[in-house]
């Protein structure tokens, strides 16, 4: 399967702590994207990292990509209660077709 698999499946932290989520995949990709989904809502694009990039930052988000290990990580620094959501990695083996993982449910306690 080409689908990204996240771990942990669930993560519970205190506000102010950092949250790290990991994603693994099995085949080659053009890029890997991270999305967030609040309960019952749509998917919000967070960040995209291309296969020739190793690290990318956007605000409190830091994404790394290790193509040799076929893995990526999403780090949210100084988490807030409003960061509580499900986070998905999505691989784009061919443009326009995202393959999503199962997601990590992040709960940030105030």
């Amino acid at each position, binding site marked *: 399967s080409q689908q990204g698999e996240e771990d942990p499946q669930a993560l519970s932290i205190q506000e102010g702590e950092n949250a790290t989520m990991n994603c693994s995949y099995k085949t080659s990709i053009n890029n890997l994207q991270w999305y967030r989904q609040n309960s019952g809502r749509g*998917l919000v*694009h967070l960040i995209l990292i291309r296969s020739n990039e190793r690290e990318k930052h956007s605000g409190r988000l830091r994404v790394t990509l290790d193509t040799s290990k076929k893995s990526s990580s999403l780090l949210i620094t100084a988490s807030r209660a409003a960061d509580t959501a499900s986070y998905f990695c999505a691989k784009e083996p061919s*443009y326009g077709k995202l393959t999503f993982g199962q997601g990590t449910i992040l709960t940030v306690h105030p």
Partner: protein
Amino acid sequence: EPEVTQTPSHQVTQMGQEVILRCVPISNHLYFYWYRQILGQKVEFLVSFYNNEISEKSEIFDDQFSVERPDGSNFTLKIRSTKLEDSAMYFCASSMTGGYTNYGYTFGSGTRLTVV
């Protein structure tokens, strides 16, 4: 900020009935997609659409499904004869460049389809 709009937010239909899910993509986007998420499962790609034709479709997108851009602003997904297993959240997404930029895809809030 521009949004992808989906209607209705929730639709209940009887098995065997036809449903049309509607989406208004972002106005200057050229690539359009449908995904679905069965409760508790992964988000799955259904179909991509560009230049008034299907670019790619998944195994799920069989003959009971069709897509259309009827008037230059709406993008619809039709399910001809719904089955119980079609119950899911259906997401529309659009993109300006189909993945060639850093902006990813813009998803709508989804239509929850319940087949009874």
